[in-house]
């Protein structure tokens, strides 16, 4: 009976959306903004924004940094996708970043940026993000805004419940959204889903000084679809919560078959206990092949190594490690409030938002208040863990963040709104429409112990009539909403790159003070660096030619190179000799089947070029660096294969009269 009413509600909601967007496009979006909204988002020219927002680029595979409250795009940081704009994934130095056990993968799908935390607060050191498609986790250095490390996760597919971190970034996690047989089982019938398909809750240890990641252990869990996670804090420090849907364990037409049960599960994991077990030598080392890519700031180069094994704990063998909490229906987000006592789950097909109590959970475990088990894992009784439910919140609840003042903000995908409610009474305070179909939402510090509050940012999937049309492919958007008052107020609506799947927002002061202005030339340890023009040279070894080139305003050295033959592999290593702020140089060669390079001051980058024909090939600086930028160019002469044109190179000897 209950299920019918939920479904009816849902259908009604979907119908309403269809009518709203289909009939009167342009009218629904005209909600009044406050008259002083413009003042609140106006950041005068030359002034800096109050906050950084790091939003995932979704299917772009990248991250974008925006200034808040202006919504200005500051930078696209390449992570899992090649970026011809600056040569990431094209230069010899950065290609290894995109290496995987499947070889070079030029693209991925980024979902959840996660700021590193100390004492449960965003510390502004690193940003982690998951690659969903070919399961990986990346770590970005927020001093350089560069991707510094990418770690592949074995035994996982669809790394969606990732990369949420524990209170002091002891661990970040990954888990499978598309359960698969473990990597050892090579050829399995899809029909054997229930028997052979597993989840692998992966715990990655993060070195607290260097940020370096290593897989500490994988918990082998039943084959559900693990969707999201959040670690406890304060009293719940030792625990982490994952949502799972498809507890039906369907493997076809999931739309229907994975939506049959009234309740799926929250999986509560005692990670501290798992850590202890592993420290005691429990678990087994299982062969696994996964790439571990590291970027070194001194060599300006990445290396990719293949790891060989992973430690696994089969949770069935270790009672007390995990418990299932029933949760209505197909839970998506699970979010822990700042004090660490309540955790909120959002069943995306549910008509209520359950708020669970950590204290009650421990009590229920203590008194063995189980309604049964799943594959030997105890399932706690819903009511023994439940603190209460938010009634009639809206349709399609997905995610909740907190403002630190006792209020929670939950995104509603289907009814396209944000609902503000009071955590302790679960009473709804306010609701505000979003344009349209919000997914995640971001309150600055909203998942931390001390939220900054002030704003909530809606991250929307659909924009339709919100901006000037750009053909069938439209931008997605973010909306800035003021939450300082009792009523939420829409301030600004701005387009984003890719899909702004999720974002984390942090006060600018935590980042900007560490920002690197340029790399020191004397610290450049790239083996192909030419640290002065005297070191500029061209060296041939068989059919490999290494060009050690320097760039400084406004010339490249050497700039006339002859004696290259068709069929050679030419590696042009360009070192930017500038030691000043904001003076990058670019580098491009006519006809090169590769991208350009963008080289920061003090950095060395390498473009591999295989000339396939004879002729003269100009090269030049692509970044407008100076008044004589256009003069920053030169020529390669490519002679036929086997030609005896001697290898020569020079700069500044004027040959014009020849």
């Amino acid at each position, binding site marked *: 009976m209950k299920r019918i009413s939920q479904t009816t509600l849902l259908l009604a909601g979907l119908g309403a959306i269809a009518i709203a967007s289909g009939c009167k496009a342009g009218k629904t979006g005209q909600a009044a903004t406050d008259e002083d909204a413009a003042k609140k988002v106006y950041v005068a020219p030359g002034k800096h924004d109050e906050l950084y927002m790091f939003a995932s680029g979704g299917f772009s595979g990248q991250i974008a940094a925006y200034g808040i409250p202006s919504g200005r795009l500051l930078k696209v940081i390449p992570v899992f996708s090649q970026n011809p704009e600056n040569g990431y994934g094209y230069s010899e130095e950065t290609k290894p970043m995109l290496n995987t056990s499947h070889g070079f993968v030029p693209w991925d799908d980024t979902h959840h940026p996660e700021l590193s935390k100390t004492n449960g607060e965003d510390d502004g050191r690193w940003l982690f993000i998951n690659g969903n498609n070919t399961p990986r986790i990346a770590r970005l250095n927020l001093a350089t805004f560069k991707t510094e490390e990418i770690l592949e996760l074995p035994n996982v597919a669809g790394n969606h419940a990732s990369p949420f971190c524990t209170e002091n970034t002891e661990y970040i996690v990954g888990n499978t959204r598309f359960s698969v047989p473990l990597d050892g089982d090579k050829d399995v019938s899809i029909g054997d889903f229930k028997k052979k398909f597993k989840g692998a809750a992966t715990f990655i240890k993060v070195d607290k000084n260097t940020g370096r990641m290593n897989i500490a252990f994988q918990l082998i869990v039943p084959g559900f679809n693990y969707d999201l996670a959040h670690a406890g804090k304060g009293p719940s420090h030792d625990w982490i919560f994952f949502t799972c849907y498809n507890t039906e364990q369907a493997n076809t037409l999931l739309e229907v078959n994975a939506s049959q049960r009234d309740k799926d599960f929250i999986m509560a994991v005692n990670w501290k206990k798992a850590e202890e077990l592993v420290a005691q030598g429990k678990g087994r080392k299982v062969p696994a092949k996964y790439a571990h890519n590291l970027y070194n700031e001194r060599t300006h180069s990445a290396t990719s190594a293949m790891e060989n094994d992973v430690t696994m704990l089969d949770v069935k063998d270790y009672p007390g490690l995990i418990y299932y909490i029933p949760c209505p229906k197909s839970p998506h987000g699970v979010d822990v409030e700042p004090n660490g006592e309540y955790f909120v789950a959002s069943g995306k097909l549910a008509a209520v938002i359950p708020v669970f109590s950590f204290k009650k959970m421990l009590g229920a475990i203590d008194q063995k208040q189980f309604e049964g088990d799943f594959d030997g894992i105890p399932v706690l009784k819903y009511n023994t863990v439940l603190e209460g439910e938010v009634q009639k919140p809206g349709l399609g609840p997905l995610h909740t963040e907190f403002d630190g003042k006792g209020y929670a903000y939950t995104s509603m995908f289907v009814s396209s709104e944000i609902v503000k409610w009071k955590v302790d009474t679960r009473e709804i305070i306010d609701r505000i429409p979003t344009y349209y179909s919000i997914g995640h939402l971001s309150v600055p510090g909203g998942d931390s112990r001390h939220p900054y509050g002030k704003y909530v940012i809606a991250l929307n999937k659909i924009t339709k009539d919100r901006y000037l049309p750009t053909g069938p492919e439209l931008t997605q958007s973010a909306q800035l909403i003021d939450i300082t008052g009792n009523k939420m107020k829409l301030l600004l609506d701005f387009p984003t790159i890719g899909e702004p799947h999720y974002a984390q927002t942090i006060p600018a002061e935590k980042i900007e003070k560490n920002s690197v202005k340029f790399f020191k030339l004397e610290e450049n340890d790239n083996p192909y660096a030419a640290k002065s023009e005297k070191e500029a040279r061209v060296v041939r070894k068989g059919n490999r030619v290494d060009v050690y080139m320097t760039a*400084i305003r406004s010339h490249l050295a050497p700039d006339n190179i002859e004696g290259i033959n068709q069929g050679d592999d030419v590696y042009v290593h360009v070192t930017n000799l*500038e*030691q*000043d702020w904001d003076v990058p140089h670019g580098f491009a060669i006519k006809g090169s089947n590769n991208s350009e390079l963008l080289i920061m001051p003090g950095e060395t980058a390498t473009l591999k070029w295989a000339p396939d024909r004879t002729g003269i090939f100009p090269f030049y600086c692509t970044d407008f660096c*100076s008044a004589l930028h256009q*003069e920053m160019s030169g020529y390669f002469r490519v002679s036929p294969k086997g030609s005896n044109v001697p290898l020569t190179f020079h700069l500044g000897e004027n040959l014009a009269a020849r």
Partner: protein
Amino acid sequence: MKTGSRIAIAAAMVLLLTAYFLPLWEITLSAPQYPEGLSMDIWLNGITGNVLQINGLNHYIGMQHIDPQNFAEFKIAPYVFGLLILIGSVASVKGSRKLLIGLLALMIVFAATGFIDFYLWEYNYGHNLDPHAAIKVEGMYYQPPLVGYKQLLNFLAGSFPATGGMLIGLAGIITAATLYIEIRNGKRNEKERNDRAAGALDHRLQSKA
């Protein structure tokens, strides 16, 4: 010399000592694309700051590379300062007015030589340009100001004493003022002595009469 004067000279010598730890002079450059500014600090024994960046910019207009190694001044100046401090310290300990006069004279000579040298270097640096430079502006020279500001193409160049230079200036003022007071007091004392002597003579003459 009075005790007060001796203390004042000792203090001036301490101020001179700071020249070894603080920059003496600062040249600043700002332009639209350099909102953060560029600066060069001149020390007793060298130059620090954005020398590399300034050299990089100056090559467009053919100015010479600044290389602190090429300045004999930076090798001599620390010794000259040592000598000044030594003379001042002895003058303070012994209370010698003669040495004090010597100190001030040396200070003036040193300051004058320094400024003339600085001006001549600036002149050469701003006028002696590479004829093959990319940017040539007819009749334009790039001599930085001796003190104050000057617009050189897109850059506003400034030249001002830095902390160390100001402290040295203060030491000079203290030395000069001390000497002035000493001399004035000396004259007054002499007058008083003369007056007293004249008074005694009067007395004697009167008593004789």
